[in-house]
């Protein structure tokens, strides 16, 4: 995929220097910092932070345990609600979730408790000698989980805990989903995604089969026949297109494709560098792309969004990160045309200025051009319809393009459940996917055990 950028130069900085630039964006708390910060928690009752956490972690309790120097107890509290609590601690937009809701998040109280950082501290320092959860007696049930991303892994773990055997089917070489392939490198360092998967699998009873892609070498019909239940955690695997001519020209690439390469690269100095870089979009992926290119050494990084700052999907915190990394944020401008040089490679983009008129976004008639060596599309991910082409899968009811589920993560097909970004339920967040997986596992377990009792 990155072939589209092979004509570009490589970063000027050496591998070591780049590795340093891609180290932890938010370094972990020291023991002293954790002690000070945990003591700031007011141990609220019916705590707003818990209500704000999609995975319903008992935050006051785990922070209280940190304060009590009971790190294993704290970690167990987190993991019992969210088995991927370690990566969520690093990638959650806490500024719009728990820390937004923290009762100390107001001027009088100075600042919210650093819940995400404390969660990371507990999990990094708990040091379990064996997996903290034990499996219930074997039920003899086998469940297929499609997708080894946060939703699938969470579902698999909870099912294994209830005594079921789980086979996870994964298209990629590595498990972890977006934690492995999609998160900015400096947010999840030191191969954390793989270490977390390894920890999760420590419960036993989970087999992961790689190179298995639904709609290609795997069909829902077969899975339904062979397993007692199926969970679909497919994610969003298609990239939204700009709808412009020359969108496939060398120099135009999906931001997710580049981030994926960047995360997997052993040597960052071998990545193509877009010295003049354009990122189209305003979500966290757009910010991640722009900031990472800036850290690779790009001199001129521009992020362009068709609406205003207030409409951006990226949180204020993310926008601040962009600004701190010399990313220029342009608003009220819409991609109008990809500009190519004589060799057919990207040389820039023309934008049409936009404005709101009667509540609708319209072109003002004014245009401008920005020079660029590469253009990265980050205007959103789409559900990949190709995964649901087999006759059984095709029957699944949809919410728009995504798979329809009810509150128990049940699809329209009996015995088939779904969760995470491939459903329309909740927000497209890792922590939301983990919760979906957990809820689906509970629903599957309840259904299967009901069937056992009835039999």
């Amino acid at each position, binding site marked *: 995929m990155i072939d589209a950028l092979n004509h570009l130069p490589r970063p000027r900085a050496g591998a070591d220097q780049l590795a340093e630039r891609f180290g932890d964006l938010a370094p972990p708390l020291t023991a002293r910092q954790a*002690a000070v910060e945990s003591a700031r928690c*007011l141990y*609220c*009752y*019916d705590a707003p932070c818990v209500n704000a956490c999609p995975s319903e972690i008992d935050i006051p309790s785990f922070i209280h345990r940190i304060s009590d120097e009971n790190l294993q107890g704290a970690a167990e509290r987190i993991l019992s609600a969210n088995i991927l609590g370690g990566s969520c601690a690093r990638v959650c937009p806490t500024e719009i979730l728990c820390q937004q*809701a923290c009762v100390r998040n107001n001027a009088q109280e100075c600042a919210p408790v650093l819940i995400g950082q404390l969660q990371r501290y507990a999990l990094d320092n708990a040091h379990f000698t064996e997996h903290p959860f034990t499996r219930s007696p074997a039920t003899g049930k086998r469940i297929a989980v499609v997708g080894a991303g946060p939703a699938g892994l969470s579902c698999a773990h909870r099912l294994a805990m209830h005594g079921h055997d789980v086979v996870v089917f994964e298209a990629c070489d590595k498990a972890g989903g977006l934690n492995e392939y999609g998160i900015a490198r400096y947010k999840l360092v030191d191969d954390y995604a793989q270490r977390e998967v390894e920890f999760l699998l420590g419960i036993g009873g989970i087999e992961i089969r790689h190179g298995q892609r639904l709609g290609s070498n795997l069909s829902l019909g077969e899975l339904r026949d062979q397993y007692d239940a199926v969970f679909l955690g497919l994610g969003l695997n298609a990239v939204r297109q700009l709808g412009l001519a020359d969108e496939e020209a060398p120099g135009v690439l999906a931001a997710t494709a580049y981030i994926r390469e960047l995360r997997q690269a052993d040597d960052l100095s071998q990545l193509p560098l877009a010295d003049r870089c354009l990122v189209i979009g305003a979500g966290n992926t757009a910010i991640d792309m722009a900031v990472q290119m800036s850290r690779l050494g790009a001199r001129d990084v521009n992020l362009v969004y068709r609406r205003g700052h207030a409409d951006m999907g990226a949180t204020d915190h993310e926008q601040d990160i962009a600004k701190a990394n010399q990313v220029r944020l342009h608003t009220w401008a819409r991609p109008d045309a990809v500009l190519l040089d004589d060799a057919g490679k990207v040389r820039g983009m023309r934008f049409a200025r936009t404005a709101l008129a009667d509540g609708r976004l319209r072109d003002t008639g004014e245009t401008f051009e920005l020079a660029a060596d590469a253009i990265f599309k980050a205007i959103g991910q789409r559900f990949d319809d190709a995964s649901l082409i087999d006759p059984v899968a095709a029957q699944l009811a949809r919410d728009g393009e995504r798979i329809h589920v009810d509150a128990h993560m049940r699809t329209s097909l009996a015995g088939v459940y779904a969760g995470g970004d491939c459903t329309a339920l909740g927000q497209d967040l890792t922590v939301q996917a983990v919760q979906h997986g957990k809820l689906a596992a509970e629903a599957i377990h309840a259904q299967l055990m009901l069937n056992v009792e009835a039999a």
Partner: protein
Amino acid sequence: MADLSIEFAGIKAPNPFWLASAPPTDKAYNVVRAFEAGWGGVVWKTLGEDPAAVNVSSRYSAHYGANRQVQGINNIELITDRSLEINLREITQVKKDWPDRALIVSLMVPCEEQSWKFILPLVEATGADGIELNFGCPHGMPERGMGAAVGQVPEYVEMVTRWCKTYCALPVIVKLTPNITDIRQSARAAHRGGADAVSLINTINSITSVDLDRMVAHPIVGDQSTHGGYCGSAVKPIALNMVAEIARDPETRGLPICGIGGIGNWRDAAEFIALGSGAVQVCTAAMLHGFRIVEDMKDGLARWMDQHGHRNLEAFRGQAVGHTTDWKYLDINYKSVAHIDQDACIGCGRCHIACEDTSHQAIASTAKADGTHIYSVIEEECVGCNLCQITCPVENCIDMVAQDTGKPYLNWTQDPRNPYREAS
């Protein structure tokens, strides 16, 4: 600025802040630094008979609050471990160099008349302003028949006080141990013996914590520990009560009291003075922060006095004594009800769960659509216990509002519900 100078039991000092007999007043070097910093007086660390006491290594341990904030310190240090001769020589010189400061000498010798008769003239000859009898040290010295071993027996307190008044012309301050049942018994005994004043409290028997790996309490000496004497802000409530008990005891009325126990700032000092203390002694706060804190104490106290029109300490000393009474004289008809300032409330729910689980179910929690809650007082259920106000992390968010019940003052001795009430 208000006048902070005092005359306490005949001893003059430029301010009421004295350093208590303890490590900070162990030798001339420390005491001179304290005077340079502005302390009004010091009580020189307790002298004893030669040979001097011998101390162990590892002497203090602490009880911590959140963020390693020290609530209290426990110590197992004994009286001075330097010779009597050196101490007396240094005291003489320091008093000569600092004539305007109060210099009191703490003493502890065996409970024998001869021992006191020997040491008292030596101390008097230094020019010191007074003596303080250490009847309170709870560790090390009782094993030798001194310290708390004397302070816990009122007859001994009275006897030794009388010896001191007999063999010494200096004001005698009797320092009381809190490790007793009724502090008034000790104070009355000192009073009978002719004491010019009492000072209290000395430290409280304590073990602060246990090392759970080594299974030994702190402070650790080798692989053993022992109980020590507890001081610092954690003991302030105990000290305030004992001061008040003596201040309002008819038998000791008018006996000067030097307040000691957890005084760390001007407000603490003002509270001790309001309950009758004519001077205060500080130790732990100085040990935690250095002598410089006295500047803040003096400044804060003087400004507060100015704001309230108190020209000197006597203007407010003892003003809270008359409002301290026995439970049976409290007004049964008084009623207060909690009021929550919804604008100040941050929604932590602590008042609700405290009241719901452990008190009177008088704070309702109403969920809002956004996942937060509104907490409101059910006035009919509220007994005015103050628990919600105590649990609230926001100052002045919960107010206890006095209710107009329209009922007259009525105490338990008059209450018809009291089967043992006094006949009217």
